[in-house]
């Protein structure tokens, strides 16, 4: 008998079908409908912003990341999500800079995929928010011609945008500073001002449900966040309707959906244990409501997730699963 050229591997010798790149690329693909929905409201500007952020992220990953790490698709997600979290009128150079910052300091420096402690897309966004607080809180009005550019997208890099933007406050800003409530119907449909990806809660929910069904994202933290925000928001609303809007408003406004479905599910930066994910979600939800209601900022999803990212190792530590056969051992002692 002719001996074949054998290989030897460790057991298990077979493996399930899912691979990290497959998961990442599917998640990236699932963001396409979200971008499309946004283009429906903001026209070509949405696309440009997302592209700029993605380009910044991908180029940075290419040059600072590990060899061939572009193939795993995670930098793509980072770029897309960063773009989706920015206002549609932000100068493109800022979006790209955010992508660079997020990947360079939120990921590459930590050792690349899987090692980072904070959500890279949100690190990029938090940087932009701190660096250019005006540009990132300038919200163009949705609607208008598809090809009209919202805001000064093509501002010269490192220079002020020349802002003759028609702005509209976001529903959260309206509530916080003008005590004006936007109807939940509009929020769900996405006909309100806001960042590229926060406009259509429904599309995000559907995409998230698809991913959860595929097992590509863990549904526990989003569900936990949404429930906490709903309950806590409603509770505060009953206590003081002027300070806090109702629970549904909280759930459907701002970046909550995008954050809960896509950012609080980034397995790298949230706890690995299921118990931990419930806890993580609950804390994120609580911080979101606290910042929205008592804080100085109208929106707190980004900060809430980043803060809880910092707590992730602690939560992991506290929620280790109980090893089979050790409960009784303890009782016996």
């Amino acid at each position, binding site marked *: 008998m002719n001996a074949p050229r054998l290989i030897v591997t460790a057991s298990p010798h077979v493996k399930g079908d899912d691979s990290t790149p497959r998961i990442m690329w599917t998640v990236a693909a699932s963001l396409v409908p979200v971008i499309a929905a946004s283009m429906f409201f903001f026209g070509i500007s949405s696309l440009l912003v997302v592209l700029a952020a993605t380009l910044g992220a991908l180029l940075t990953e290419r040059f600072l990341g590990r060899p061939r790490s572009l193939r795993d698709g995670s930098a793509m997600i980072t770029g897309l999500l960063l773009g989706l979290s920015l206002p549609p009128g932000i100068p493109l150079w800022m979006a790209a800079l955010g992508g660079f910052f997020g990947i360079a300091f939120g990921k590459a420096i930590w050792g690349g995929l899987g090692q980072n402690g904070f959500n890279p897309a949100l690190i990029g966004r938090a940087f932009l928010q701190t660096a250019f*607080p005006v540009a990132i809180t300038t919200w163009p009005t949705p609607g208008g011609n598809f090809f009209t550019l919202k805001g000064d997208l093509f501002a010269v890099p*490192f220079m002020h*945008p020349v802002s003759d933007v028609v702005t509209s406050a976001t529903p959260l800003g309206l509530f916080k500073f003008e005590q004006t409530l936007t109807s939940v119907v509009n929020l769900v449909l996405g006909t309100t001002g806001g960042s590229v990806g926060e406009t259509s809660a429904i599309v995000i929910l559907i995409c998230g449900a698809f991913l959860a069904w595929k097992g590509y994202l863990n549904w526990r933290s989003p569900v936990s966040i949404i429930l906490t925000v709903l309950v806590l928001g409603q509770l505060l609303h009953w206590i003081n309707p002027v300070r806090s809007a109702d629970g549904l408003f909280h759930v459907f406004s701002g970046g909550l959906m995008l954050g809960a479905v896509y950012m609080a599910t980034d397995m790298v930066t949230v706890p690995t244990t299921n118990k931990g994910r419930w806890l993580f979600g609950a804390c994120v939800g609580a911080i979101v409501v606290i910042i929205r209601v008592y804080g100085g900022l109208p929106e707190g999803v980004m900060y809430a997730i980043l803060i809880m990212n910092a707590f992730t190792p602690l939560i992991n530590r506290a929620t280790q699963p109980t090893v089979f056969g050790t409960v009784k051992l303890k009782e016996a002692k």
Partner: protein
Amino acid sequence: MTAIGVEIAVDAPEPIVPGAPPPQPLSLDFWRGIADDNPVMIQMLGLCPAMAISNQVSNGLGMGAATIFVLVCSSLLISSLRKVIPNEVRLATYILIIATFVTISDLVMQAYFPLLSKTLGAFVPLIVVNCIILGRAEAFAGKVGVRRAVADAFGQGLGFTAALLIMCIVREVVGSGTFLGFQLFGPHYEPWVFMIMPPGGFLTMGLMFLAMGWWGERKKAKLAEVAK
């Protein structure tokens, strides 16, 4: 670093303190603080003021000057009195001496540079606890002669100021688009507010460490190549 810690933890009754620095030419004592043994970049001391006030170049100048003043004066005094200060109350005495000089510089600043003093705020009195100063007193001034102590103090002070100024320049130029208040990039520059906020301080210092790390790695790689 170890020398400091060790000496604080152990009250050695010997008059000739073990762990005194080896004899070296004065110039080395001076240069060490600026380069090889830079208090901020190598010893990681005095980070608080370095980050807290480094968002303007003028702050850096003022802080650096005050620190050098305190460092040199206290080193001088401590070194000349090192034989009479009993070991047990060594630290307390050093602190008294340092605090005296700090308060003097604080008062002088308030009187003659009121605006600077206001922006530096509590960080001028906090020079007392700048780990560099006590560290130098412990590791150096308390063990060697006056000339060496002063040379070392100058070196360390300048090293601190240099690191501080690099940070200040980066932060002010990027964060405000100005240098010592002068506009650099014209009126349309979009300043990166981030850089003058707290995270920017951490980031800038992080970048300095990264640059150092990169430099070190490159040197290592070069060495290996040469060896080949």
